[in-house]
């Protein structure tokens, strides 16, 4: 891996990539100060308060329809009426294709929609961070400002374009759309991380005769892996849970993701909350699994590049 420039004075540039022991060391210091009982109590209280609403939904998904509509979910503990019917109905929806194919669609849609913007954004962020060219600042501000454009204004123009080039009804429309909408924020956040990498590393590589492409692959990407993973998780969640883009661009139910199937679960007249509760939890499983499995990237540090003053 790359060599580090450890510094002794507090005001100097911090390390680019803290090793595990140093990270542990730093957190132990903070831990000594904040592991007081009050702190733990507050933390536990916050965690409980945050989770109660979701817990309520989980309990509701196991209750029969009539019980959900007439009594609160907390009465489940004094008067448990358990049923798996909601899950059975949600998973085996007859009439339309079973939830299974929508599940596959969700995966097929999400994975490229995460890979494409991350790749393109890291290249763009590198260019903004490390290559000086005329108009760089203006272009960066423009890209950053495009975050505000609500994607609804782009739906009709994009769809018209896709249809006219014959892409309508395929996965490409959703992949390209998600990638486009993700770019402004992706470039913004990745740019922020890239600027934290010490100039000295890049200088050393240039002195060795490396071009920008080499620097990108040999220095940037390895250092940024945690950042890319972290942004990847956010993008995964956003695409997995997206409804609007899927509704507009995936007009054929062979390409529609689970969010669409779930939205329709509530019935034509929209009162089947018991089905929605079960469906919501079926849908949550994957993002939570992804989050938990990639936890170590969060622990290691999103901003592994360290921070300037």
């Amino acid at each position, binding site marked *: 891996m790359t060599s580090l420039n450890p510094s002794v004075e507090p005001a100097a540039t911090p390390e680019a990539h803290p090793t595990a022991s140093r990270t542990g060391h730093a957190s132990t210091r903070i831990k000594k100060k904040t592991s007081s009982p009050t702190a733990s109590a507050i933390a536990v209280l916050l965690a409980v308060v945050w989770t109660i609403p979701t817990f309520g939904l989980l309990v509701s998904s196991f209750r029969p329809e*009539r019980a959900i509509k007439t009594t609160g979910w907390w009465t489940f503990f004094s008067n448990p009426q358990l049923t798996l019917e909601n899950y059975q109905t949600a998973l085996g929806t007859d009439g339309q294709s079973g939830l299974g194919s929508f599940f596959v669609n969700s995966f097929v849609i999400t994975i490229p929609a995460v890979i494409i913007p991350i790749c393109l954004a890291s290249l763009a962020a590198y260019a903004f961070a490390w290559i000086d060219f005329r108009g760089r600042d203006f272009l960066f501000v423009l890209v950053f400002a495009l975050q505000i454009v609500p994607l609804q204004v782009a739906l*009709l123009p994009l*769809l018209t374009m896709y*249809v006219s080039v014959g892409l309508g009804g395929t996965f490409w429309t959703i992949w390209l759309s998600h990638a486009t909408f993700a770019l402004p924020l992706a470039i913004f956040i990745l740019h922020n991380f890239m600027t934290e990498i010490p100039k000295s590393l890049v200088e050393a590589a240039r002195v060795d005769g490396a071009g920008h492409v080499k620097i990108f692959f040999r220095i940037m990407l390895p250092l940024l892996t945690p950042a890319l993973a972290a942004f990847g998780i956010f993008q995964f969640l956003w695409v997995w849970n997206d409804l609007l883009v899927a509704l507009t661009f995936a007009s054929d139910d062979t390409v529609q993701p689970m969010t669409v199937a779930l939205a*329709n679960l509530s019935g034509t007249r929209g009162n089947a909350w018991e089905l929605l509760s079960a469906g919501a939890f079926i849908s949550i499983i994957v993002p939570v699994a992804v989050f938990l499995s990639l936890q170590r990237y969060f622990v290691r540090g999103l901003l592994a590049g360290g921070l300037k003053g």
Partner: protein
Amino acid sequence: MSSIRSRRILAAVSGGLGFALVLTACSSSTPTKSTASGSADCAAYKIYGDLSGKSVSVYTGIVTPEDKPYMDSYKPFETCTGAKIKYVGDKAFETQILVRAKAGNPPDIAIVPQPGLLQQLVATGAAKEAPAAVATNVDKFWGADWKAYGSAGGKFYAAPSGASVKSMVWYSPKEFKDKGYKVPTTLAELKTLSDTMATGGKKPWCAGIASGEATGWPVTDWMEDMMLRLSGPDAYDQWVTHKIAFNSAGPTAALDAVGGYLKNDKYVNGGLGNVKSIASTTFQDGGLPILDGTCSLHRQASFYASNFPKGTKVAADGDVFAFYLPGVEATDRPVLGGGEFNLAFADRPEVKAFQTYLSTDTWANNKAKISSDVTGGGWITANKGLDVANLVNPIDKLSASILQDPKTVFRFDGSDMMPAAVGSDAFWKQSTAWITGQSTKDTVDKIEAAWPKP
């Protein structure tokens, strides 16, 4: 790390291959071929010819559980002609169909629930006029008013499909029998009945108008019913087409008449709270207190039957039933209702054939028979060829007999006919504000202001 360079080269080479493969993989799959059946049942379908291998897409806002009867009703057509019908139900239908039509990506057929939306779709230029066979069927099975709802700019586009009767009041037959109440035959009698029920502090009426972004639409139904009864069908037509202003005397009086029920502390909100609770109660929950005995009357369309929990007996001698919302005189029969229309965006032979099938009495009877098996309310249509004997549920029989009664003066739901800025936005929003305290005058003024300038 030279593997990165070699990886890039490998990627570049495989990219070319990959591109070709992607194109092949993405080509549409061949539809399942089904040969035309030779059974005797297919005699009625011979005129559509052999459509083996052809596919028609249908897009609608009808999802589970009502979608299954639709798909099942298409099966005879599919088996006998060999065509494949692809049904896609989507709750966001009303916004998405416009987006798709404008973008050039419409379905073959859309089941449109509002004449106003139909007008908008025709205006995009994507819709196709109905074939002559459909027009003939519509002339045969429906009146001129229904045909007009499916027309735009003097041209006929869409045959009616299903229908619903909205001028109904739900009640508990047991309660009426026990307390000796009689079903009112005039509006005055309805008022008296409400007053009688209210003595002793019980609130006789319950209502709910919450419906996500469509919150407020039940109030529009109330107002349309009152307008129809108090000002008459001709004034109603003028109101809906903006020949009279929304804040003129007639509509204002109609809304005040609704206020006599929905904003009357003594009358509402039985089992649910005070007047304001009408705005926070979902329309699905609005009539449920009848089952608990905390409410006696709930004005809602015939399709409300499916909202009662499984096992509720919906019949004249059951747990809950509905009576016709009376007019001013006992002989008046104004009826507010809704319905759907089959609009085509393609004119391929198989689409035309399917469109024709949907406008026949064959389909209507198929659908009615199948839908009767769905719990709660079934399905009815204003198609005169519908054999009422095919309907099983009492509420369907009642609604169908009202629709087919020659004395009935039928009018389509007004907010479904008004321009979207009013019927799908201002009318709903201002009605909700009206329930939570806004004055009648402010409400009608604001809706009038929202009417798009020509």
